[in-house]
């Protein structure tokens, strides 16, 4: 079970409180990746499609960042394995809106 923390606007869109818990399909080597977590998230909450990754290119939106285990994973390749602590559910995978004024 992988835990995902969404920013407030996306929690509201998905109509969830607190963390989201996902059954994530692991890759052939048994590892969870950014892509597999986001695929599972969008499958459960289709209203989030296009809000984290661009609908067409599937690239992370410019003002969205990914963090886990005190690391900024935003620029990691989408198929790179996530930290073990995320894969085991010990730590959440965090989707964060970039800070800005206004």
């Amino acid at each position, binding site marked *: 079970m992988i835990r995902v923390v969404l*920013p*407030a*606007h*996306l929690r509201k*869109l998905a109509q969830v409180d607190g963390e989201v818990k996902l059954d994530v399909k692991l890759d052939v080597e048994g590892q969870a990746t950014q892509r597999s977590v986001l695929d599972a998230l*969008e*499958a*459960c*909450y*289709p*209203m*989030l*499609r*296009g*809000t*984290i990754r*661009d*609908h*067409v290119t599937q690239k992370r*939106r410019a*003002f*969205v960042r990914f963090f886990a285990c005190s690391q900024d994973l935003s620029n990691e390749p989408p198929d790179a394995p996530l930290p073990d602590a995320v894969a085991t559910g010990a730590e959440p995978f965090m989707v964060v*809106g*970039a800070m*800005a004024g206004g």
Partner: protein
Amino acid sequence: MSGVRVLVGTRKGAFVMTSDGKRKKWDISGPHFAGWEIYHMKGSPANPNRLYASQTSSWFGQIIQRSDDGGKTWHQPGTPPGEPTTTPEGMPKGESNKFAYDTSPETGKPLTTHQWYDGTPHPWEFKRVWHLEPSLTDPDTVYAGVEDAALFRSADGGRTWQELSGLRRHASGCSWQPGAGGMCLHTILLDPSDPNRIFIAISAAGSFRSDDAGKTWRPINRGLKSEGIPDPNAEVGHCVHRIAMHRSRPGVLFMQKHWDVMRSDDGGESWREISGNLPTDFGFPIEVHAHEPDTIYVVPIKSDSEHFPPDGKLRVYRSRTGGNEWEALTKGLPQSDCYVNVLRDAMAVDSLDSCGVYFGTTGGQVYASADAGNNWAPIVRDLPAVVSVEVQTLP
């Protein structure tokens, strides 16, 4: 008793304001979609309870919202409440957020590029929906004008969107260039007398017309003159801010251009200036009285570099002669120290016997006049900056 419903989009959410035919007391609901920019909301002429809203964010992209009960409740049309969230094949829905530009069927590559600020070719990149225009006859059909400039259409109540890519395929498409506010398709006018005729306008490409329901398009900018475009016959490149028509006379169009207020009497084939005695002919919105096709409204703004009313006086100008002769409407509007702007989609009229006129400002005020502009009063004063105002006349 008949009434009105005013749909207000702001930088931080949507508001729905209702009143009876007197238009003196208002019920206000909102903010809906709090914290998100609501570029536009509009109701279906064929079913006033069907509303569409463009909810957008620089962070999280584009969401389309739909209400089937006049704005009391909303949902994303790709995932209606109570329906399975996946297709029978197990694929996730959520298509209502998806605005994918057409690609070449032969190569799968983008159809064309447009011109970037530095003159180099640049691929089209979807940013947001600026304007939603529901069909005049079918509540499930709605058009979306988007940035980067393109026209999309949904025939299933906003669940899925298909581009009418004949517009971008026009030979001039590769020369379109964004203005400072981006390259947006902001105006969509459907001709009530001819279902095949559609007018659109793009900043800063100009206005275009289709006579075959959006398959093919041609520029209709003859007569427009713009500083910075030395060629008086330039087919495109004009920064059209807004076009308006009266439904009884769809061949007559009124335009607020970056500078200049213009009129066409031949469906856009040619334009002539009608700025007349306006204190400045820069501005954004333009509207037509519901019952008097030659009565039009603009809000003059000082200049392209100073987006506020001249002399700190917020004045709507009305022409009852189809242009050239204008009178200032000031009763109830601030006449000192007012430095707000009125954006292109932030003015609307109702169709009650005494035509109501409405506009919203970047200072968060929404003003209403129940007597065609003679007297004004604020419905609200302290909203976030107002981006769009539409009004529905209810039975």
